[in-house]
C-alpha cells in the first residue's frame, strides 16, 4: 500500500515536470511561418491557395476554444498535436496528408510550402500556449451540473404521487393515517 502511494506521488511529479517543461522544439523551416496567418488558414478566414478545406471543418483546438461546441469533431482535437508529432512529424504530415479520410481532399489540393509553414507555426504556438481545461475544473463543472439537475428533480418531483394504496394500508395498520 505504502509503495503504491509513493508511486502515485512520483507519477504526479513527473506529470508536473512535463507540464512545466514540455519537450517541444521548433523546426527550422517552421521558424519562417507566421502563426497569425496559420490561424487564419486553420479557421478558414483565409482560404488555402489550392482550394483545400480549412482544418477547422473537421478538427477542433480545444485549448484555444476553437470548435469546442462539438461542431468540429470529425477528426481528433489538435491542441497538442505538435507535442505528439514533433516538428519533423508536423512538417512531413502537412506536406503529404495521407490519412484515408484526408487524402481524397488534399491529394489534388495540397498546401503550398508557405501555407505549410504558417499552419505548422500556428500548431507549434498552440501547443506551447494552450491551456487544456484541467481535470479539477472539469470535475467542478460536472459536480455543479449534477447538483443543479438533482435540485431540479427534487423541486419538480416533490409533488409526485408516491402510491396511494400501500400508504393507506400502512397508515391504518400503524394508526398514523387513514380512518379507523
Amino acid at each position, binding site marked *: 500500500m505504502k509503495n503504491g502511494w509513493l508511486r502515485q506521488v512520483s507519477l504526479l511529479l513527473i506529470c508536473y515536470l512535463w507540464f512545466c517543461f514540455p519537450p517541444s522544439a521548433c523546426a527550422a523551416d517552421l521558424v519562417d511561418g507566421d502563426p497569425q496567418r496559420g490561424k487564419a488558414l486553420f479557421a478558414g478566414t483565409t482560404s488555402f491557395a489550392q482550394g483545400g478545406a480549412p482544418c477547422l471543418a473537421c478538427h477542433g483546438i480545444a485549448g484555444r476554444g476553437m470548435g469546442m461546441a462539438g461542431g468540429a469533431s470529425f477528426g481528433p482535437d489538435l491542441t497538442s498535436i505538435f507535442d505528439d508529432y514533433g516538428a519533423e512529424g508536423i512538417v512531413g504530415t502537412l506536406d503529404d496528408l495521407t490519412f484515408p479520410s484526408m487524402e481524397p481532399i488534399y491529394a489534388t489540393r495540397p498546401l503550398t510550402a508557405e501555407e505549410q509553414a504558417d499552419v505548422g507555426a500556428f500548431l507549434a504556438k498552440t501547443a506551447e500556449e494552450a491551456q487544456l481545461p484541467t481535470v479539477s475544473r472539469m470535475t467542478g463543472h460536472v459536480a455543479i451540473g449534477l447538483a443543479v439537475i438533482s435540485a431540479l428533480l427534487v423541486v*419538480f*418531483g416533490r*409533488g*409526485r*404521487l*408516491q*402510491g*396511494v*394504496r*400501500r400508504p*393507506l*394500508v400502512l397508515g*391504518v395498520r400503524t394508526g398514523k393515517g*387513514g*380512518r*379507523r
Partner: protein
Amino acid sequence: MNIRAQVSSVFHLDKCIGCHTCSIACKNLWTDRKGVEYMWWNNVETKPGTGYPTQWENQEKYRGGWEKKGDRLQLRLGGRGGLLGNIFHNPRLPTMDDYYEPFTYRYGELTSAPAGNDQPTARPVSMISGRPMKIEAGPNWDDDLSGSGIYAANDPGVLQLSREQRAQMFAVERLVMLYLPRICNHCLNAACLAGCPSGAIYKRGEDGIVLINQDKCRGWRMCVSACPYKKTYYGWATGKSEKCVLCYPRLEVGEAPACFHSCVGRIRYLGVLLYDADRIEAAAMQDDKDLVAAQRQIILDPFDPQVLAAAGKAGIAEQVLEAAQRSPVYLFVKKWQIALPLHPEFRTLPMLFYVPPLLPVVSEEHLGTQRLVDDYFTTLENARLPLQYLAGLFTGGNTEEIKAVYRKLMAVRIQRRRITVGDLSESEVAKARELGEVSAEQIEAIFRMTALTSIRQRIVVPPMLREQAIEAGMDPERHKQEMGFGSRRSPKRRW
C-alpha cells in the same frame, strides 16, 4: 343548436348482483394480452369501498377531471404550460400497486409434483415479473366487505361524512353495500381527450364513442391522470394507452357490447341520445349542485319536430333518429329522471347514467332477515345508506336531486306492491305518486322497463351505417372484397 348523437347507457344498480360476468366478458375479449393484464375496462366495485384503482375518486391525489378557474374550465392536472412542463415526468400517475399487481398461479406444479407426503401447492406468481409474490390487492379486493376497516372506511365518499353518519353506517346491524359496475363514460366533455398532448384521443362524430388512436398515441399517459374515472390505462408492452371502446366493432354489426350482452342481472340499457353540443361548456360550468339538471337540459327530445329537423340538417340519419326515439336511456334519464351520472362534479359530462339502488337505502334488519321498511315516507331522512353518501356519488352533493329519484322509485314499489300483494290502500299509493311526481302509467312503464324487457328493448343499437360512409369513397361491394379490415398496423413502440 348543434345536434349530435351519442350512444349512451344506463346501469340499474338495484339489479346488479355483483357477479363480475361483465368484467370477465370484457377481459376475454379485449385485455387478455401481455402488458394489459392489470386493466379492467369494465370493473365492478363494492361501495362503500376505495374502488379500482385505490381511491380513484380522490382528485386531491389523482388530479383528474376539470375545475372552474374564473370563468373558464381547466383540467385539474394543470394548464397547457403545466402539462408541457411535466411531459417527461407526469407526477400524477397511479402506481402498479394502486391498481394491483396482476398474478396467476403455477398450476402446472399441481400435476407435475413428484409423489410425496405433502399436498402439492400452486404458488402465486406475478404476471409481470413471473416471480413468486404475496398477493396484497386485487381489482375488487374488498368485494362484499362494506364494513372493512381499511378499504370501506377510507372510501373518499365516506370520509366526507360526519362522524355520526359514519358510525351509523358502520354499525353492524346496519351494514349495507351496493355494487358499482364502471366502464368508460364516453363523456361529452372528456378530460382524457383534453389532456392528450399528441391529439391521439378523439370522440367519434357519429356516435360519441371516445377512442385512442393507437398510431398517434405516444404514451405520455396524460389521459391516465386526466380521466377522473381512471378509465384509460397504459399498456406497458405496446407503450400505448388503451381504454374501453364500447365494443364499437360489435355495435357496428348491431350487437350489444360484450359486457351489456353478458350481464346476468340485465342491468344494462343502451340507446342513442341527442344533445346540443353548443351548450356543453355552459353545462359543465354550473355549480356542483346544478350539474345534473344542466346535463339533463342539453339532452334533447327526439320527438320534438324542431329537434328532428335540426338533427336532419346536422347530418344525423333518419334511422338513427328513429333509434333515438326507441332509446331506453332517454326514458330513464330525461323522461322519468331516475338515472343520474356518476360524479357529475368532475365536469366531464359522463354519458353513462345510474339508477341508484333502492334496497340498501330503505331496507332494515328484522329477526335476522332483510326486508323493506314498512314506513316508506319517513325513511329517507334516516336512510340506511346516508343520502349524503349517495348524493356524493350521483348528484354532486345535491340531496334534493337524489331524494326526488328515490321518491319516484318508492312510488313504483308501492304501486306494484298494491297490485301484487294488495296490502296497501289506494290512498297510500296516491300519496306516494304525488310525492314522487309520477303518474300511474309512468310507474307501469318504469316497472316494465325495469323488470319485463327483452334484450332488444333494453339495448337499442342504432344502425351505424358503415355502408353509407364507405359509399362516399368507393363501392361498398368492392370495399368488402378488397379492403379486408383496411390498413392496420399492430400497436407497438415505433420511436
